């Protein structure tokens, strides 16, 4: 092989090699492109439906439209709770840039802590980005102006419209109406029908909670096509229109409600006023109260803890959930039981010497010298303990228990506010069951004057006294206008009730509750004192420190002849019922009967003032006469 032949052979070989490698390139191209074809097949045909769904989810945003919560009206259509528009300052998370810088500026301009915002922003990272971070709820216009003035500092801060629950009377309606708040985990678990979801506003207490389903309504939604920045694009598809909550009309009278709260003033206590014929509650208050408006925006931890840890427990609705010994107010029931069971007759008498020995133990009457010979009427009017010690001994606990139960003492009344308690019924069976102790005969004697193991709620006493007022029918107290049920006629004779009502009118006329007198309108009632500590027995209330004083009761109704309103009032550590609880009742009754009472005198003398003063002079407290300390 010469040089040329070798060269030609090499040329031929390299030619062959180039051809092979071109074929290799071709093969590579076919493999790569077939691979891509397979990938498109996989994405578009095998997984096409899945990706179609993902594309739809990208495109369509389900925007929740919250319903407007129903308005709560009082009996005269005055608004107790409604929904008002409010503005939130939000940080838009869609396309958010320089979040830290913006939040730091917010801290310096509005004083919102940076770390808190940052933590909440981090906590939201799994939420869809079209949900903004709420920086500040219910923001004031001044704050918005501060942000708007520095618009270029806050490219992602926007103002969002929202709706907040509004209680125009604030603390005055707190315990009657309750408050709302964001639904919590346990409520979500309880209402599993999907009607509520995270973030929904639900009733948390009071009427708001009891009638939440009526008031809440049903949230709606719409589907909106959005672009990648979350901005709406084109038209939205109809989803479901929100169903607004229905309005709720209450039996509450806003004027009476306000008057009651003002009358209770700084005292710790509660009062409930209702129509004795129907059980319609006209006013229900518990003090100290709280402002339900603070719960509408998420409550700060400190606000919440200060309410929970307040030793006076403002969140408690004392009218339905606190129970106290009824004291002498229980003598009303004792008298009914005595007359009905035949243990006494209207003409029975007892000689009171100031004390009596029963079962080998001395029991004191509150009046040191004794009442002398007292009949049924006198015993109730002057609250003679000795009379009732002996009556209790004669009847025995089972008879007392039977009548207490009949009048709902120690039973829930069924009022339409959540959280009602039973108290402790005067029952040997109850003591044995719950205390694991036998009933001692001496227990009966204590119970006979409303002390000892017995404990009742104000609403129970209001129901009991309503039955006396309405001629012997047990009503169910209620706040919603449509929640009344037919009263249950009790097997109590008219004669018995006449004796009681006669005496109760005289209690106000000449007995322990003269401070409840109301001029031309006759008030009937019974005061009571619930012993808090043993040491308070027989000691003047004025000589005790406030915390050691007894709880003061006043239950009653008016007008005495044809009752339209019945009530129960407790002032904790109020001492004598007649001194502290009776004036509260009088103030509310004054408002209730305002159009039937002569006009009130004004301090600065108008031409008619002197004349009015003279006319009202017969009322001891109006004339400034010192009241007689009495029970």
């Amino acid at each position, binding site marked *: 092989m010469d040089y040329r032949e070798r060269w030609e052979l090499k040329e031929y070989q390299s030619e062959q090699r180039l051809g092979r490698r071109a074929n290799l390139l071709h093969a590579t191209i076919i493999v790569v492109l077939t691979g*891509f074809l397979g990938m*498109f097949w996989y994405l578009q045909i095998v997984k096409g439906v899945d990706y179609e769904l993902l594309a739809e989810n990208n495109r369509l945003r389900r925007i929740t439209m919250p319903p407007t919560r129903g308005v709560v009206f009082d009996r005269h259509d005055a608004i107790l709770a409604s929904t008002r528009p409010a503005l939130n300052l939000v940080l838009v998370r869609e396309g958010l840039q320089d979040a830290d810088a913006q939040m730091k500026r917010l801290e310096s301009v509005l004083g919102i802590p940076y770390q808190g915002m940052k933590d909440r922003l981090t906590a939201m990272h799994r939420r869809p980005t079209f949900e903004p971070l709420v920086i500040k709820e219910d923001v004031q216009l001044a704050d918005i102006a501060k942000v708007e003035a520095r618009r270029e500092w806050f490219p992602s801060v926007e103002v969002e419209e929202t709706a907040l629950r509004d209680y125009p009377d604030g603390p005055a309606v707190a315990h009657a109406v309750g408050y709302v708040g964001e639904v919590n985990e346990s409520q979500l678990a309880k209402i599993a029908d999907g009607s509520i979801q995270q973030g929904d506003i639900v009733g948390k207490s009071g009427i708001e909670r009891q009638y939440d389903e009526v008031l809440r309504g049903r949230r709606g939604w719409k589907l909106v096509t959005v672009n990648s920045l979350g901005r709406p694009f084109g038209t939205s598809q109809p989803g479901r229109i929100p169903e607004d909550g229905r309005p709720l009309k209450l039996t509450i009278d806003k004027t009476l409600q306000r008057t009651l709260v003002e009358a209770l003033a700084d005292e710790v206590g509660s009062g409930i006023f209702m129509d004795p014929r129907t059980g319609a509650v006209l006013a229900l208050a518990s003090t100290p109260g709280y402002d339900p408006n603070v719960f509408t925006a998420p409550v700060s931890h400190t606000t919440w803890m200060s309410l929970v840890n307040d030793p006076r427990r403002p969140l408690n609705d004392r009218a339905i959930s606190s129970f106290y010994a009824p004291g002498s107010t229980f003598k009303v029931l004792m008298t009914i039981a005595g007359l009905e069971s035949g243990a006494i007759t209207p003409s029975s008498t007892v000689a009171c010497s100031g004390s009596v020995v029963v079962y080998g133990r001395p029991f004191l009457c509150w009046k040191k010298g004794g009442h002398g010979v007292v009949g049924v009427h006198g015993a109730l009017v002057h609250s003679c303990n000795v009379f009732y010690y002996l009556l209790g001994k004669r009847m025995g606990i089972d008879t007392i228990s039977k009548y207490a139960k009949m009048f709902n003492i120690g039973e829930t009344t069924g009022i339409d506010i959540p959280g009602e308690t039973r108290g402790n019924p005067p029952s040997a069976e109850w003591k044995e069951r719950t205390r694991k102790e036998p009933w001692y005969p001496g227990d009966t004697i204590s119970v006979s004057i409303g002390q000892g193991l017995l404990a009742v709620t104000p609403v129970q006493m209001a129901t009991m006294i309503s039955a006396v007022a309405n001629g012997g029918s047990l009503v169910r107290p209620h706040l919603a206008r449509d929640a009344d049920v037919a009263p249950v006629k009790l097997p109590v004779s008219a004669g018995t009730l006449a004796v009681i009502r006669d005496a109760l009118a005289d209690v106000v006329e000449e007995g322990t509750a003269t401070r409840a007198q109301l001029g031309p309108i006759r008030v009937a009632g019974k005061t009571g004192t619930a012993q808090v500590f043993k040491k308070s027995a027989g000691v003047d209330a004025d000589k005790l420190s406030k915390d050691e004083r007894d709880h003061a009761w006043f239950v009653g109704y008016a007008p005495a002849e044809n009752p339209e309103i019945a009530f129960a009032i407790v002032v904790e550590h109020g001492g004598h019922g007649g001194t502290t609880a009776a004036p509260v009742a009088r103030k509310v009754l004054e408002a209730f009967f305002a159009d039937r009472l002569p006009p009130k005198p004004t301090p600065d003398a108008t031409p008619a003032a002197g004349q009015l003063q003279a006319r009202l002079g017969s009322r001891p407290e109006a004339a400034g006469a010192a009241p007689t300390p009495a029970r």
Partner: protein
Amino acid sequence: MLRRRLLDRLDVPTIVAALGLALVGMLAIASATAEQPGRASLWQTQLVWLAIASTVALVVMTVDYHIWAEFALGLHAAGVALLVAVLLFGKAVGGNRSWLDVGPVAFQPSEFVKWTTCLATAAFLSKRVHNRVRLVQGLQLVAIIGTPMALIAKQPDMGTALTFVPIFLGAMLLGGIQWRWVLGAAVVVALLTPVGWGHLKPYQRERILTVANPDRDPSGVGYQVRQSKIAVGSGRVTGKGLFKGTQNRLNFLPAQHTDFVLAVIAEELGFIGAAGVLVLLYYVLYRGLVAARSSQDRLGTYLSLLVVCWFTGQTAINIGMVVGLMPTIGVPLPFVSYGGTALIAVMCGVALIANVRGHRFVN
């Protein structure tokens, strides 16, 4: 007689396939930019670019490729000089300094250099004495292809730089490198990968990791890949209809008229549209292979095959990105993506193939 010669010399099927791809691209660009403020008429701009590109390509096609090869080194040197100029005076767009302002239009020298690289490499391979790539030839190829690649990487336009890798690999393979060298190089690359990983920027690493696990960061780097796959997949068999792609028009799809234009086609025209584009692309590449085989000399063969390598690499990188098999790298799909310089470059590339094909009977 003359008419037959002309028809024979004009590689009609290749030209039709290339123009067809460009027209499909035009539709996709029109749809992709319809909702983008200030960009709605971009498809018209692209039409103008197509006209310019066709004119330039006509010149490239008509002048005998042997003559182009004569000037190959000079053209390539000019291209490299432009790349240096870009680094010195270029305009930065999106962090990459890859544009030169020439009068009213911006010009991307890196696209032009892809073409000169193929030309210069083919000229080099066809003129050598020994038809085997060993150390010296290997270094010479590194000089020809690696120089522009390094300059582009410096811009830093990693995507475009990456498109030189298939050209280089093709040159080595077609130049006759022995398989044992390939094997050795593969081992070295495998060993150096961890070192290279350390030199990558954090965002580049993220992009590579995201390919392995698209759910790694669905809101950040994974977002584009994910949205592209959603666009492709949701197109299903027949697509949502031209101009009706939600991923495209609502802007979920990133860079939908440039790098992700195939995702728009797949979304709006479905598997049929995507497969159609793949078939057309394959056909252009196939025509390159045909031209190479029928070429009367090595220069024509090398020229066609290197252009095929260039197109193949760029296509693979782009589609790999669209279907989520490659990291997100800004590389246009030949003929289809928006971009004037890129269109001129690929049209000139296809013109070289047609040129080779057209001169198969000459002499």
